[in-house]
């Protein structure tokens, strides 16, 4: 498996002089299975535009493009690049777009393809020349063929969001963003009038069980891409419930999982390159990380598993 980061930023693209080193594009990851000539894309944030251009120059000459896009969820920073994904305008291109959908919400096709309406964009989705199939995903395990096994896991985000675990030839590649630790959201203060003992206990148990399931989901990853938008201090001071984790939590999870490499991902858009370097110093120094290789994902970075 070959992994390449085309977008690593969270929330909104933030190009400019302060984000040159780590990159300003939002989430997009390329996953290549060289032996079977298979290309999988995770998320269609603004980074997918550059990936699309790369595919036009390097894949299209070899024949029509066939690819699968796995969306972690449909928040805008994860789908905004889709209208600028050039291969979708090319006749002969076949796209399968997978993602989770909440009950009573719009279909995946409406959420993603719905960006292509005149009010947002000069091209309508019906005018796209490619063949696109939309597929709803749930928590499950799938055989994708060519020896690729995919496991999906619901994460903890304000919108239904999936983590993806790909297993191929004894290697494990796993994504777990946008997410934060599952919490007991119920009142635990016995003096609060709304306190309910049973609810409080069960909330505790459920949160613990779900966090254990995320640990199991990430176990043994050769590369784990984990949400690390905040520092623990930022998280605790004002970001609980926003659906993102701290670097400290991501590192603890990776260690628990016995991950070989941890890519800290979904960087806070306000973070400058200098600040990212400082965080690298703080979280990725040798004595801090034990057996796991920890780094902040950078746009353009390539990793072979």
């Amino acid at each position, binding site marked *: 498996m070959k992994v390449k980061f085309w977008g690593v930023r969270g929330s909104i693209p933030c190009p400019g002089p302060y984000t040159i080193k780590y990159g300003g594009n939002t989430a997009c990851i390329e996953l290549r299975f060289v032996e079977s000539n298979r290309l999988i894309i995770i998320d269609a944030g603004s980074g997918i535009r550059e990936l699309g251009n790369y595919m036009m120059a390097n894949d299209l000459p070899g024949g029509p493009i066939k690819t699968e896009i796995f969306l972690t969820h449909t928040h805008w920073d994860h789908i905004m690049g889709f209208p600028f994904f050039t291969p979708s305008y090319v006749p002969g291109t076949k796209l399968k777009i997978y993602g989770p959908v*909440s*009950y*009573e*919400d719009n279909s995946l096709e409406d959420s993603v393809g719905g960006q292509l309406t005149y009010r947002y964009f000069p091209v309508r989705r019906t005018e796209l020349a490619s063949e696109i199939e939309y597929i709803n995903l*749930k*928590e*499950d395990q799938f055989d994708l063929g060519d020896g690729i096994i995919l496991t999906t896991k*619901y994460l*903890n*985000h*304000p*919108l*239904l969001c999936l983590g993806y675990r790909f297993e191929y030839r004894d290697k494990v590649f796993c994504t777990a963003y946008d997410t934060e630790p*599952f*919490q*007991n*959201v*119920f*009142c635990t203060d016995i003096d609060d009038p*709304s*306190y*309910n*003992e*049973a*609810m409080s*206990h*069960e*909330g505790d*148990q*459920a*949160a613990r*069980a*779900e966090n254990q*399931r995320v640990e199991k989901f990430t176990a043994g990853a050769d590369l784990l891409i984990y949400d690390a938008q905040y520092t623990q201090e930022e998280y605790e001071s004002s970001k609980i419930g926003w659906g993102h984790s701290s670097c400290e939590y991501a590192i603890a999870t990776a260690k628990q999982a016995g991950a070989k490499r941890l890519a800290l991902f979904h960087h806070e858009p306000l973070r400058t390159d200098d600040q990212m370097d400082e965080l690298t110093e703080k979280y990725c120094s040798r004595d801090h990380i034990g057996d796991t290789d920890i780094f902040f994902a950078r746009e353009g970075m390539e990793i072979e598993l």
Partner: protein
Amino acid sequence: MANPMIEVPITRELRLKRIQDYIFRMPSLSTTVSKVVEICNSPATSPNDLNRVISLDPVLTGRVLKLINSAYYSLVNRATSLTRAIVMLGLNTVKNLALSTSVLESLGGEESFQAFSMDNFWMHSICVGVTAKSLAAIKRVPITDREEYFVAGLLHDLGKIPLNNLFPEEYVHAMEWAELQHVHLYQAENSIFEVDHCMVGEMIAEKWVLSETITDSLFHHHKPVESREENRQMVAIVALANTYANFLEVGSSGDRFPEDPQATHLLEQVGISWSALLDLRETVLSEIEKARIFLQLTPKGVA
């Protein structure tokens, strides 16, 4: 060509077909629906309030659990309670489920309850739920399992909703007949419809894929001995709670036969004395009162 003026007697098969169709679009109770909408539309919904408001409506509780456990989310770990569902799927997802279920389905409104009032049905259901949960506590059921007892009690009479709504005039007859003959309402239902609310309850539970214990509570709450052995404790507790609610005359779901000959047997089966049961009265009444106050709408402008 058939003469439309001649009324064709309805067969059992036809009744069952109509009941099946009805279960698809079963309405939520108007007693709770306004509060569900208020709480779900508030940007600062507290998880405790959301959990509570859903759990006060038997139809909504069943439907939300159904959706959560349906192929729609296909959770590997089944969510047996609302509390768990809210932690697993998040507040927003459950809020959306409740809102869409409740708003879309509440259109049936008062018409759904012609033989007995919706408020009385709601109060009876809550009373059985609260009593079942209290009995579970007395029987030292682990605290995290007690919510299922509440849900089983809350939902036990769901089967009456389709019967009452689809065949309102006959349902009034069934109630009168039960009173006159001094028999249980389910027995009268059986004589008139060839189907009773326990069977309809089972149909609902199966359609909504509710847990086996809750399904048994819906199906066997008038004959707990017929339930699967592993579920019998819950079914017997729900049965006793039902007898108790009828005895206290808290709300009503149409059964006017409080002197239940089964009562002594149920007390033995659950392993509790009548006086201990009577001691629950204050707790049960105060829980219902709290639920009532909770459901009262916040006046506009007083958030």
